[in-house]
């Protein structure tokens, strides 16, 4: 048998070559007609989602995976990210006193049909009521199944705001509020306020599988879950009876790749169509077939002063510090230039941004002059609390604190950095006002500019301790209240300009940076994916 081995071997090699070339030719012919690759999008994401329901989380990873892909809200934001437009509700009406909000639902909304659930009816009022009841009613079985954790809704005190939700008829629901609040629409348009299927919930309840509602999702969104392997990948396919514009791709795959070097390699090796949070931007720019997207996020990283404690009860001292800090150096060192220098708390992409209002320029002389004016020629000693966790708006508070320490040493101010507390304790102590100054930030939940002003700097939030500066200004509060009463954007913009100039004069906090979110993709992938706030959206993505 061995005599022919070499010949056999040769034959084998020859056959193998023939087979390979046949396959490649065959494959090429195939490619031109229907290549699976041309109809699929592979998104290499940075983390594992905690579940498949945005109601129960605040983590960006989970929001990215779920909100815009699997679900819809009653209302949503337009492309310009400022106007609220219809979604599952085809229209809505707010009464004059602002206490009743009525939604008129679309009649053609289908839920996902998957191998674990087949819907028998379209969306109606029951689904809307169920979706919010589970958040509001602490005895609801689906409130219990989620462990009572609805962090977004709890942080905006949704329970206090809503008196009840009324079913007018099959396609009309009314939210009765305890008091008027112009942010209710913004909250209902946020990524968290998604609508679930009551029919699915009832089916699960029969088998006592309550927790499946958050892990095996059924929604109304443009994609539905096909398969998920924990920690490895998520596969979505288009929802064939979606009520809106149907996606043109056949598969949407989240390839979970936590390592940022691996993500970059997979992009360069053409294994991913899109990657989140890319590193080595220059490398990506060099490649003609790749492109880098960036979007300034609706967030703000700041240095806040406890205005109740000396010496920061004096606005001259606060301004002096603003002059003494080299923000450019912070942007380069802490944010690696992946952030925008913040002149006010409002990012440039918001309609409330006003370019005429700027923060003080970096000038040691000016700072010294102001300090002398306030009677601190010899400087002083201060505590600076640096947040112990990483957030997009402040990726490294300790380094930032050290840079500020060095800057302020030049004007004879000695900075003690406080960083020994873990996050929840840290926030607790801040709420009690134990700090003198603090490095912190804020991410907006929706694009209404009020979401920057009221939670951060109003008197009401100074009382609850959420306003870490404890700065309370009657005039400023009045302006905010007036701005909430009207709907005309030009008019509101005038109010917010006034509010911003009060802040520039009073300087209860020094805005430092609005971080940017990046993603890299192949140029053949078309369509907007990144949003300034909230999660990514694949609805309009296609490949050509």
């Amino acid at each position: 048998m061995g005599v022919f081995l070499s010949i056999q071997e040769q034959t084998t090699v020859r056959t193998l070559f023939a087979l390979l070339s046949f396959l490649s030719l065959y494959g090429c012919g195939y490619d031109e007609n229907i290549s699976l690759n041309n109809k699929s999008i592979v998104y290499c994401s940075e983390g594992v989602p905690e579940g498949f329901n945005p109601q129960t989380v605040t983590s960006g990873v989970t929001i990215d995976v779920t909100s815009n892909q699997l679900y819809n809200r009653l209302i949503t934001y337009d492309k310009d990210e400022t106007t609220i437009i219809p979604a599952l509700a085809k229209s809505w009406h707010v009464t004059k006193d602002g206490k009743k909000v009525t939604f008129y639902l679309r009649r053609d909304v289908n839920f996902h049909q998957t191998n674990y659930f087949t819907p028998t009816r379209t969306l109606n009022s029951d689904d809307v009521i169920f979706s919010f009841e589970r958040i509001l009613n602490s005895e609801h079985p689906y409130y219990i199944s989620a462990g009572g954790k609805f962090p977004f809704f709890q942080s905006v005190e949704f329970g206090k705001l809503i008196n009840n939700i009324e079913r007018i008829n099959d396609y009309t629901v009314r939210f009765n509020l305890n008091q008027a609040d112009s942010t209710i629409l913004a909250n209902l348009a946020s990524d968290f306020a998604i609508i679930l299927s009551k029919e699915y919930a009832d089916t699960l309840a029969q088998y006592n599988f309550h927790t499946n509602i958050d892990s095996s999702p059924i929604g109304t969104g443009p994609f539905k879950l096909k398969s998920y392997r924990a920690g490895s990948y998520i596969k979505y396919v288009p929802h064939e009876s979606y009520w809106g514009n149907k996606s043109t791709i056949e598969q949407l795959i989240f390839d979970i790749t936590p390592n940022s070097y691996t993500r970059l390699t997979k992009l360069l090796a053409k294994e991913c169509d899109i990657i989140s949070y890319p590193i080595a931007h220059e490398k990506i720019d060099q490649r003609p077939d790749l492109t880098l997207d960036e979007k300034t996020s609706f967030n703000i990283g700041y240095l806040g002063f406890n205005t109740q404690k000396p010496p920061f009860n004096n606005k001259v001292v606060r301004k002096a510090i603003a002059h003494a800090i080299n923000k450019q150096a912070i942007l380069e060192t802490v944010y690696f230039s992946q952030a925008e220098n913040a002149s006010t708390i409002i990012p440039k992409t918001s309609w409330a941004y006003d370019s005429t209002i700027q923060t003080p320029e970096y000038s040691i002389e000016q700072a010294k002059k102001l300090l002398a004016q306030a009677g601190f020629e010899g400087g002083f000693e201060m505590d600076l609390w640096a947040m112990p966790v990483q957030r997009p708006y402040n990726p490294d508070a300790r380094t930032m604190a050290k840079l500020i320490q060095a800057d302020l040493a030049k004007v004879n101010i000695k900075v003690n950095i406080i960083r020994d507390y873990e996050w929840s304790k840290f926030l607790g102590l801040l709420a009690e006002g134990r700090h003198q100054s603090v490095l912190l930030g804020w991410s907006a939940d929706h694009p209404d500019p009020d979401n920057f002003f009221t939670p951060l700097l109003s008197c009401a939030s100074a009382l609850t301790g959420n306003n870490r500066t404890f700065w309370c200004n009657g005039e400023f509060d009045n302006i905010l209240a007036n701005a909430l009463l009207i709907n005309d954007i030009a008019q509101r913009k005038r109010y917010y300009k006034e509010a911003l100039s009060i802040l520039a004069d009073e300087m209860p906090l020094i805005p430092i940076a609005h971080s940017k979110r990046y993603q890299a993709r192949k140029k053949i992938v078309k369509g907007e994916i990144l949003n300034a706030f909230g999660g990514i959206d694949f609805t309009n993505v296609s490949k050509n």
Partner: protein
Amino acid sequence: MLIFSLRRLNLFLFTIILLTLLSFSLSFLFPGNQLVNISGQVNATDEQLAIIGESYNQGGSLISQYFAYLSHILSGDMGLSMSSQTPIFNEILIHLPATIELTLVALIIAMAFGIPLGFIAAIKHRSKVDDTVLTISMLGYSIPVFWLGLLVILIFSIQLGWFPSSGQISLLFEIEHVTGLLLIDIMLSDDPFKWQAFQNALAHLVLPAVVVALAPATIFIRLARTAMMQVLESHYIKAASAKGLSFRQIIYRHAIRNAMVNVIRDVGLQFANLVTLAMVTEVIFSWPGIGRWLIESIYQRDFTAIQGGLLVLSSYIFIVHILTDFIYAGLNPIARGKKYGS
């Protein structure tokens, strides 16, 4: 041949017994509770642990404990993974086929390139061809596999974009798990995109298989070269030459066959080396094989997985070793007469 087979079977049994003994003793050597180490039940209550202890014959002597362990293994129960709490046996069923596929393809590549090159070098002994082949084999043998892996990714995945850098197949394709051997599963599936999937899987296989194959290929070059040189100097070749056979006839009819026999003998030995290389390569190429799984388990201090993984991986190497022995015996009648397994 029967006696030969019995001897091999005997050797196999004893080796397996030794391996299970080693794996069993590891559960004592690892830190922590031995029962937890062997069963992987990290969250079990005391009562549950007592029941598990019963099944592992904890009250009895060490020898009876070992036999209890053996019966667990034979019934496919290798305990639970300490980190994921899934049965080790299932994890192995998922991961082992990927490694089998990678190592077998790498072995074929190493033999297909190494052996002919070695023969050529021997035939052209002391010529430039010989020197070149020897230099290449020296170089190839000296390159560390992790460096080579990164290098080929850099060149062929990132710069040229010819081959993918990670995984076994693109996530685009959904292939049903039948045998676990992906290429075979693709052929068995009735997916409309079957051929695209096959191409894609082949493209994924090329780089890791070549990386794993390089070092063994260089060894095959030298083995084949030495074997061929020995054969060419033997008397029957001289006799054939004296009979007036052409050089080509001598090589094809006599030399290659006899040289091959000596090379085949060492394939089994080289296979162990190849599997070690494959473990490192699996990590670099994110190949979903048992080597990568085992290395991850080591990082996670997943003792149950380490024990199970080691046992299965070494059995796999040993089975291939014995298979090559059979092939060797099939090719070489003299070997069948040898009395002791080696």
